[in-house]
């Protein structure tokens, strides 16, 4: 940082302001680290009995690993479906708002998308299992009949529609505003000169976007997707309401599978003793997954930074 050089030149009154500001900024930063640390310590201490318990006493009777891995996979599947659906749509909407739509439409459309983020997850969950799930049943029946040879569409399809695929679709809707809003802001920051240069060289609008906008925005897009992934991994209520839980199965259109967050939410109210420790240990695993995912994201952003137009 070059603040030292700057502050030494500034007047005494400016110096006090600098000090207060840097103190406040430092305090905020430290507070976040302390919070994070406190959460990690809480999870570790509360989860400890799980790791010391006799494997036979853990739910399922085969130890913590056997208990946790199916729901880890379930969590990842749900988040993956959500991102597969939400990323292309989110980027498309963001591009439309930033570069294609007339200003008259772009503003309200962006506002509506942002509004999606303000809907509580329990509402998404209720909508998911009351409206969306029954509506998807005919589609699932069709998939089972025609695409059933692919393991993920193996029949017989659920007659309630409360499946992993439905949960993934609901999650996609929840993740969409995060990806859209962040990407839109980043697309809008593309240097006008880059865009105009591309157009001047004879690029079509689409070529301008692929050559000037997307490379510039790549780290931001990755950030947006990771933030969306964070929401999808940790989403609790919507999944708990929408999914017919069960053991790990490959088919996405039968009832089954479970996510960590939903497992905790569903069992927490009546849990005590070892079961409670187990659920908190599951929370710890989720915490670790998220940390790892975010670290990978940081690594990707760091690697691409030098190629982007950002500097």
């Amino acid at each position, binding site marked *: 940082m070059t603040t030292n050089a700057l502050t030494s030149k500034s007047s005494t009154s400016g110096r006090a302001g600098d000090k207060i500001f840097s103190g406040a900024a430092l305090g905020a930063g430290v507070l976040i680290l302390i919070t994070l640390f406190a959460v990690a310590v809480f999870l570790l201490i509360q989860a400890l009995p799980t790791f010391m318990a006799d494997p036979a006493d853990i739910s399922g009777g085969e130890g913590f690993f056997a208990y946790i891995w199916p729901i880890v996979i379930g969590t990842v599947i749900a988040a993956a479906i959500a991102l597969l659906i939400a990323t292309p749509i989110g980027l498309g909407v963001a591009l439309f708002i930033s570069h294609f739509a007339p200003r008259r439409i772009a503003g309200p459309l962006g506002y509506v998308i942002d509004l999606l983020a303000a809907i509580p997850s329990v509402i998404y969950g209720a909508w998911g*299992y009351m409206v969306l799930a029954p509506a998807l049943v005919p589609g699932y029946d069709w998939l089972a009949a025609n695409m059933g040879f692919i393991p993920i569409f193996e029949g017989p399809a659920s007659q309630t529609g409360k499946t992993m695929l439905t949960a993934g679709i609901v999650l996609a809707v929840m993740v969409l505003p995060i990806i859209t809003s962040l990407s839109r802001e980043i697309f809008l920051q593309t240097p006008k000169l880059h865009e105009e240069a591309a157009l001047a060289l004879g690029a079509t609008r689409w070529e301008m976007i692929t050559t000037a906008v997307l490379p510039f925005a790549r780290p931001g897009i990755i950030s947006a997707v990771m933030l969306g992934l964070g929401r999808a991994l940790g989403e609790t209520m919507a999944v708990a309401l929408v999914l*017919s839980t069960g053991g790990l199965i490959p088919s996405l259109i039968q009832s089954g599978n479970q996510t960590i967050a939903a497992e905790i939410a569903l069992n927490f109210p*009546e849990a005590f003793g070892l079961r409670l420790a187990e659920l908190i240990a599951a929370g710890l695993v989720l915490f670790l997954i998220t940390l790892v995912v975010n670290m990978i994201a940081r690594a990707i952003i760091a690697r691409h930074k030098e190629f982007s137009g950002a500097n």
Partner: protein
Amino acid sequence: MKLNRLGSAAAVLSIAALALTACGSDNPTGAASSAPAGGASADAAVSGTLTGIGASSQKSAMEAWITGFKGQNAQANVQYSPDGSGAGRKAFLAGGAQFAGSDAYLKPEEKEESKKVCGPDGAFNVPAYVSPIAVAFNLEGVEELNLDATTIAKIFKKEITKWNDEAIAKQNPDAKLPDTAITVVHRNDESGTTENFVEYLKATAGDVWTYDVSGDWPKDIQSENAKGTSGVVSTAGSTPGAITYADFSAVGDLSTVNVKVGDEYTKISAEAAAKALETATPVEGAAKNDLALDLKRDTTEAGTYPIVLLSYHIYCNTYKDQATVDLVKAFGKYVVSAEGQKTASDSAGNAPLSTSIEEKAAAAIDSITVAK
């Protein structure tokens, strides 16, 4: 630079957001506050605050009881935190609550433990809440079905998969049964409803239902499920051919199964459920004021509906001062009084206790004394 900052903000935010989502349930563990000293007699209005923790099944009944009790004793207050039966018993045994609500009675070893907080006589169980569990289904044109325990067990075990199966048709010669697939819907959260329902299946159709009895649905049966009573009822309601089990007060438009008891089929009703308590036997070796009951799920007495959820209140035999004793007695007796039971069933839709059990329960609660 700007992007960089955005990126790190995004990373930190997402971690924080995830860390926060893990803790969803609020947990008001009110400290056990004792009533202020005062020599009010048991019949006069009492004051103070009583803290209870326990079964969520009693939640709506408890709200009615608390409102009714406060109506009689303006100075008194009762806090009930529906954290679950296990959590309630644990908090009670640790001295964190003056009474517990529980779908299961205190086991002998828990009674032994209760002597630490309750004095040498320990704690005792009083039946407080009875609710019939309906086996409910969604089948167009079929208003009710007669089924025996074995058939119900086979349906929920997914051995019978069509509504026009021979086993169902045989017991319902008049019903027009369609060739629809049966969709079983169970609770995906741990629940006393599940526990009582599978206990019935285990007791009456043990050769079919070979699973352990617990508040969690057996992991080996993969079927549709939903969260909470409202979840299973709503899911079954929107799925033709669905069958589920739920608190009778909540089944709404779903049709219900008449369960075979002895040689007859019993239609679900509050009276038939209360009768199940009459046929229950006291738990062996219990103290004389302990009203823990072993329900006879396999009773053959006509007119009894055996799939009921019985929930207890657990009190200490002694409390440390007269004011607390008065408060506990007043509240406990109100709950098991005819008036208290009626208030609860009006709002929660459960079955009132029978008169003889009400009397026994009142007598048991009357035996609470001040610790010496």
